[in-house]
């Protein structure tokens, strides 16, 4: 079989887009229009629908797409999404880390003297679970963008965020204190499509595995 066998795939825009489109090319999908147009969202003929990575599990769980590609970080933040996690695609490697301003560790000081530290993150559930698991009291402050700003302004003592190279952290004077988890792109499937379109999905999985 070539192409996507009639399946609809939720494609993440942003850092994972390039590798995702290369993978789809190898599967025989037509990605030219996606590559040529960064405003259009739905490519019905090609079976592709593009969106923020964090929206991919939402569309796949509801069956608006049969398959999807998104980061493990997104899946870990939303464990309640009923989707199958079929493959580790290997690309888009990054780490979920705990970072604070360079120099003396203000978070450790807050924990010692105040008994609780404030931590900003876009991943409140991953962060809360991490500090609970490691027996530390943390007040989680959810922010929507530029998490690095939060400790620099005194809003929080540290951050939990995703980093690929650490450049943004370094440029903002932050250092990684602890690594929480590693993340790569994953192939996910809607639970109903996983049964009703089993042959097409298994074919895609086999061809990705086979390189």
């Amino acid at each position, binding site marked *: 079989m070539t192409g996507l066998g009639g399946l609809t795939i939720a494609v993440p825009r942003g850092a994972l887009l390039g590798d995702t489109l290369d993978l789809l090319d190898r599967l025989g999908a037509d990605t030219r229009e996606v590559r040529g147009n960064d405003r259009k969202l739905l490519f019905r003929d090609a079976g592709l629908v593009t969106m923020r990575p964090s929206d991919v599990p939402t569309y796949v*769980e*509801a*069956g*608006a797409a049969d398959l999807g590609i998104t980061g*493990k970080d997104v899946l870990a933040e939303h*464990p*309640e999404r*009923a*989707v*199958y*996690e*079929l*493959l*580790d695609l290997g690309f888009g490697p990054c780490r979920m880390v705990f970072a604070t301003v360079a120099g003396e560790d203000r978070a450790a000081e807050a924990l010692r003297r105040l008994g609780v530290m404030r931590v900003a993150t876009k991943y409140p559930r991953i962060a809360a679970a991490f500090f609970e698991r490691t027996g530390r009291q943390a007040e989680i402050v959810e922010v929507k963008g530029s998490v690095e700003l939060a400790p620099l302004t005194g809003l929080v003592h540290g951050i939990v965020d995703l980093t690929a190279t650490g450049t943004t952290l370094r440029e903002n004077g932050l250092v990684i204190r602890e690594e929480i988890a590693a993340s790569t792109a*994953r192939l996910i499937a*809607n*639970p*109903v*499509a*996983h*049964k*009703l379109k*089993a*042959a097409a999905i*298994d074919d895609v999985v086999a061809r990705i595995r086979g390189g």
Partner: protein
Amino acid sequence: MIHRIPSGTRDVLPDEMRELRAITEAIRGVFSGRGYGEVATPALEYEGVLVRGDAAAADPAYRLFDERGQVLVLRSDMTIPLARVIATRYPTAEPPLRFCYFAHAYRSVQPQRGQPREMLQAGIELVGAPGPEGTAEALVVLCEALVAAGLQNWRIGLGDASLYPRLLDRIGVPEGARAQILHELVTRDYVGLAREVERFGAPDLLELPQRRGGPEVLGAPETAQLADLHALLPADVAGRVIFDLGLSRSLGYYTGAVFEVYDAALGAPIGGGGRYDDLLGRFGRELPACGWALDVERLHAARVGEGR
């Protein structure tokens, strides 16, 4: 004036109610034709009684206290209340016993997801008829109910809750490693499953649960029960079945065959059920049992999604 109702609850007005009624009346006709007697049980039960059935299933979302301080819960399904009824009201009745119900069940919701707290279920319990014959009867009634409800593009995913534990036995996976492996399976994480089973060097641990399709996916020693069941299914039922060797339902009381109903028009299962041969024993009447429930509102949504 606008007055609020709790999130996840809703009012049903005549247009919708007419369509829901048409579905439930059609299903009721099937149940009664097949000799299933309709029962109703209280929405409120003593927590201490339901906990006997299954700690997870009896982890109710809504607890309240009666005037004497006893803990009451809103039932989260009908299977456990019916196990109580059978043990209490039919302690000596000659099996098999056939019951059906149309009742609301109550679940907790995750915020902002539009999930219902209150679901209308239509279902049956077939008590004292062991598998595979009892399971086959339950599946036949399920198919008749779906046809009567006017649904067209539905399929039944059929698996076995005991399949993977028996596979773990065959491979000799130590007890201590099993909880994490089963967790990956139940949370549908095959990347995690691959990581957890790699060290046992047995490809079946990863490949078997991913097999889905027609009877050609059967064959491993752990699938003998499913093959026996398949042999008993009439052609129209067998034609709707997708064997799914990794199917796991979240309730802990299933002991054998488990199944779910899918429709291409809906991204989530419409209902499901399975065998629970130990459940009634926990209430004092040792009888094998099998049952299922359809979510009537999802069934309705799937019908609308099919354009009917």
